[in-house]
């Protein structure tokens, strides 16, 4: 089910009302059933995949806790293998087979079959969340959950199951068990945050998509300026799309009295690439930090080893986004940038101050990297970058896609969003009536300025 659909509005109202009307001890059943429906609306049979990983990890958690010595590790590895196996099959098999077949050549006698299925929605998100549970139980930071329903709800909590934030068990499981009374403040904060999320999605991201999608689909038909504009617009499209989703998810959680972790912290204000990754998709960055980078050795060891670790983590992170070379290049590019940043820092040649210049450089490098992420193929991304940097035809030719007035409107609304986001973030501390008024104003703006073509959130595909 899409957040930006009328069905979700009804779903949300019914689930939230039912949650507070039901006796506290049966609320988990209600939210779990609602979450199942939310997920099954995309493709009902895929619930079996998620159910498989839930059962495996639930059992693994208990076994890990009960076992001692090497057995604990065996159970953990088995659980991770099951999760990664599902992910590998559904997300990476066709990519792998395609590349193997390419290497073998079209005349090879045996070619790996390419399977025809649709990727289960949000697979990477809920698989990573499930894996963090068994790892935390193994590390002794979390007790194994005995209640199957609560564990299933931990993986399937509808606001965040398909596009995060990727939660940790220590943070969510106690909240699911806690009986929360209806809180005016949390509820209004939740609605307020949801309205900000909807605004980002339907007013900004989907409007920018009207320009970005056709231009990136036919880069050869557009000038350097068109492509440059598309690259900048995409940076804000993906930010508003994904952070908008996170805001709606966090807001929907709050209306049920459950606080999800913050996923974005104004990432385009970062003054270096390391700072950017502390502000962008925080739940995934910290997941990779805690479960991949640190186990690989983290910042310990030789400088060279740390750099290799960084590169490995970011390449995996790139592949996490999708089974495509372009995501791998995008991840590797960010890994290289972080290594470069560490080198500069180590050589102590970073000048003090000059924050605006640092911000400008960081922001533009991030935009450049997004080209790899958004282009339809690696070839396209190099073509786009080459065309932009050749400055060949630096005039606007995309009037048929978007007229200049709308371009200026988009620039204005991005600037306004950046300016207002800070204020709206603070507005959570405002009085309830003020927040209600702001929520209503955002809802009206969403209706009149929004694009309602039920465009899927970009991160759903991951």
């Amino acid at each position, binding site marked *: 089910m899409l957040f930006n659909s009328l*069905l979700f509005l*009804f779903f949300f109202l019914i689930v939230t009302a039912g949650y507070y009307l039901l006796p506290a001890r049966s609320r988990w059943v209600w939210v779990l059933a609602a979450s199942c429906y939310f997920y099954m609306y995309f493709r009902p049979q895929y619930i079996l995949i998620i159910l498989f990983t839930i059962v495996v990890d639930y059992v693994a958690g208990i076994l890990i806790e009960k076992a001692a010595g090497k057995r604990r590790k065996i159970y953990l590895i088995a659980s991770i293998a099951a999760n990664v196996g599902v992910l590998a099959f559904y997300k990476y098999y066709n990519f792998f087979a395609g590349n193997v077949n390419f290497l073998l050549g079209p005349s090879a006698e045996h070619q790996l079959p390419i399977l025809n299925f649709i990727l289960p929605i949000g697979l990477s998100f809920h698989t990573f969340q499930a894996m963090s549970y068994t790892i935390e139980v193994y590390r002794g930071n979390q007790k194994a959950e005995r209640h199957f329903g609560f564990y299933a709800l931990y993986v399937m909590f509808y606001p965040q199951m398909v596009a995060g934030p990727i939660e940790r068990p220590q943070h969510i499981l106690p909240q699911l068990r806690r009986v929360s009374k209806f809180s005016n403040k949390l509820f209004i904060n939740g609605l307020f945050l949801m309205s900000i999320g909807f605004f980002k999605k339907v007013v900004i991201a989907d409007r920018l998509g009207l320009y970005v999608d056709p231009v990136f689909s036919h880069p050869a038909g557009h000038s350097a300026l068109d492509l440059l504009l598309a690259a900048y617009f995409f940076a804000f499209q993906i930010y508003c799309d994904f952070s908008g989703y996170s805001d709606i998810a966090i807001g929907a959680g709050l209306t049920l009295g459950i606080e999800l972790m913050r996923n974005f912290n104004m990432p385009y204000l970062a003054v270096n690439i390391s700072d950017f990754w502390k502000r962008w998709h925080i739940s995934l960055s910290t997941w990779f930090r805690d479960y991949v980078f640190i186990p690989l050795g983290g910042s310990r060891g030789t400088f060279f080893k740390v750099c290799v670790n960084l590169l490995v983590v970011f390449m995996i992170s790139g592949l996490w986004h999708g089974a495509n070379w372009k995501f791998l290049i995008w991840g590797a590019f960010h890994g290289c940038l972080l290594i470069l940043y560490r080198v500069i820092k180590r050589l102590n040649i970073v000048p003090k101050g000059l924050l605006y210049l640092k911000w400008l450089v960081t922001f533009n490098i991030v935009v450049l990297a997004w080209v790899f992420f958004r282009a339809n193929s690696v070839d396209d991304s190099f073509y786009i970058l080459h065309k932009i940097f050749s400055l060949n035809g630096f005039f606007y030719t995309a009037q048929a896609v978007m007229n200049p007035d709308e371009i200026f409107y988009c620039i204005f609304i991005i600037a306004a969003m950046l300016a207002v986001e800070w204020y709206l973030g603070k507005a959570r501390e405002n009085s309830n009536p003020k927040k209600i008024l702001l929520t209503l104003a955002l809802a009206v703006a969403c209706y009149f300025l929004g694009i309602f*073509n039920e465009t899927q959130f970009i991160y759903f595909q991951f």
Partner: protein
Amino acid sequence: MVIVTGAINQAFINGLKKDRYFDHLNPKSAAVNTLYHRLFVRSDRWRYGDLYGLSFLHDYKFELEPFKSYKKTDKQKKATNNILYIIGDSYLADKTLSGAFDIFDDVIFLDRRFPMDAIKLDSTKQNYLIMEFAERNLNDYDPDKTQEIRWTRTQLKNKVNFSGSVNPGSPSPALPTNIFDRINKVIFNKDISRNLELLLFDDKIFTPFKELKATLNYKLFNRTDKGVAVSTDRQRLLMNITVDTAYRQSSFRRITDKELQQLAGRLNAANEYYLSIGFKKVVLAGIPNAVSVYDSNRMTYNRLLERVEKNIRFPVISIFSQMISAPGNVYYRSDTHWNPAGLNLWIAEVNKCSKAW
């Protein structure tokens, strides 16, 4: 919950759509005062044209002139022994044409947009067939994809001769056989959002809000609903797929001679098939896209109709040049289709041509 249940019930929604579609065509009746009508039927989606209903652009909100009902008059009761079948689309759907044509005792319309079973031709009469196409639908015509091609000899013999109904011989849509598929289709109905919008926000009290939003987007950004384009002279709305060259239905998409020959070949094959199942004569009638008539200089017009008409081996009823030279409007300005003047012009041309058949 009641609303959600209604949205899940596709049969209810389909009935509702039909009631809304016909509401503005019906004379005011007692039904207007029912609670059902008050709650669900009062909509502006069709009242001012399908393109207005998509775009809600206030500047193009025009009342649709009603079509004349061509019922048989006493004068026409003289039997001619000729029956006219029309396999067509929305241009002729829902029209009463039984008395429209001089040389035909009856007119039977078969709507190709919906499933239809085989028909049995009355062998005691002369059966004529008009293949009516909107220009936008002609390009993709393939007789192998039609339902008629699947009529077997036995079906053709056994089926009764339908007459007078809007969609003769249409079978009821089949339900999924598997119980899980049925449940799936109901509970996870992919149209729920659209249905909810139809149930809740399609009443005419919401029209001013929709118009305001549409006007803002149009005046500020020149953006309309993606199904709609505005003509170059800003006088009328056009169906976007007939304008945008990204669509096969566009009047401006380049059509090579090879493509044209293939299309003509498919039409000729259809002609032969219809003759083989008992029609005495088959005629092609292409209805131009409104953009081809009123805005053909917008880009390079592909002149599909004229080119097809020159390349097929059976008779045509051509009204393109007459539509261009017609003094008034022959198409609604806020709807995809022709208006009563356009239909009258076509009927006159059919009558003129049919004298020679």
